[in-house]
């Protein structure tokens, strides 16, 4: 039981961070507006959670210009994908145990 709990990742222990990772697992990349719309969160809220995930090196942030508009894209890193998979596995094990 203890080992399973160890795999429950604190970084994903939040609705919004869980949502961001879910989107980035199945999409090559997602931009700020896409994430905002899917998760239904405010700009500031989303920005702080993406920064937290970036600090863990789970996502990569790319800033570029599309025409004159700045555009921020998020991509899940290899580490992030692996960590999230482990997290899902741990969740599933916990559910099947009960």
């Amino acid at each position, binding site marked *: 039981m203890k080992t399973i709990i160890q795999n429950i990742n604190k970084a994903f222990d939040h609705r919004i961070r869980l*949502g961001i990772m879910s989107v980035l697992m199945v999409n090559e990349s997602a931009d700020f507006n896409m994430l905002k*719309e899917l998760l239904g969160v405010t700009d500031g809220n989303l920005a702080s959670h993406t920064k937290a995930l970036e600090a863990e090196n789970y996502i990569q942030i790319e800033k570029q210009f599309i025409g004159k508009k700045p555009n921020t894209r998020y991509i899940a890193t290899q580490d992030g994908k692996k960590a999230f998979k482990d997290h899902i596995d741990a969740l599933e094990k916990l559910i099947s145990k*009960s």
Partner: protein
Amino acid sequence: METKDYLKDIQDIKQMMSKSSQFLSLSGLSGILAGIYALIGAYIANTILPSYNKLGGRLEQGALTLNEQEITIKLLLIAIAVIVLSIITGFVLSSSKAKKQGERLWNDSSKRLLINFGIPLNTGGIFALILLQKEYYGLIAPITLLFYGLGCVNASKHTFRDVRYLGLTLIVIGLFATYYTGYGLLFWALGFGVCHILYGSIMYFKYERN
């Protein structure tokens, strides 16, 4: 108490994954209607075609080409009417379904769906127009069926799985139509009419009836 939260986490993850990568507002009902339009179109085309076959003797070369041209234009107009009606219906019904689900019709997944559907479809459309211009009439029905089927398979990653099976069915019908040339209209009615109604109904009963 805690396990319930974990279960909810898993459900949230699954829902967010499909919501962000698939367009789930595609209306099955619009598929049924598109199939009905196609059958009506095929019926009207059928009333034009036999008269052409009867008049198609080689008595007067000039009159024949004029007649042929006229029929080609008529058939083309029927096809365009069916396509335009189907697109409008699909657009209206999908946008109302999106509204009901609190989604936007125009989002990243619907864009990807359209692009991936559009590439094989437009290739086939242009191919068919070139065949028409070069007067290879026999291959037009199979080509449209084959490329539409490929479009469905290609687009299916971005929406319901059922679209993939519709595509595969159309490809098989398209290949039969290529082998049995001369029955183009029959295969066309089967593919675009009957199959749309069939798969549209499956989608309607699976996802919309509530």
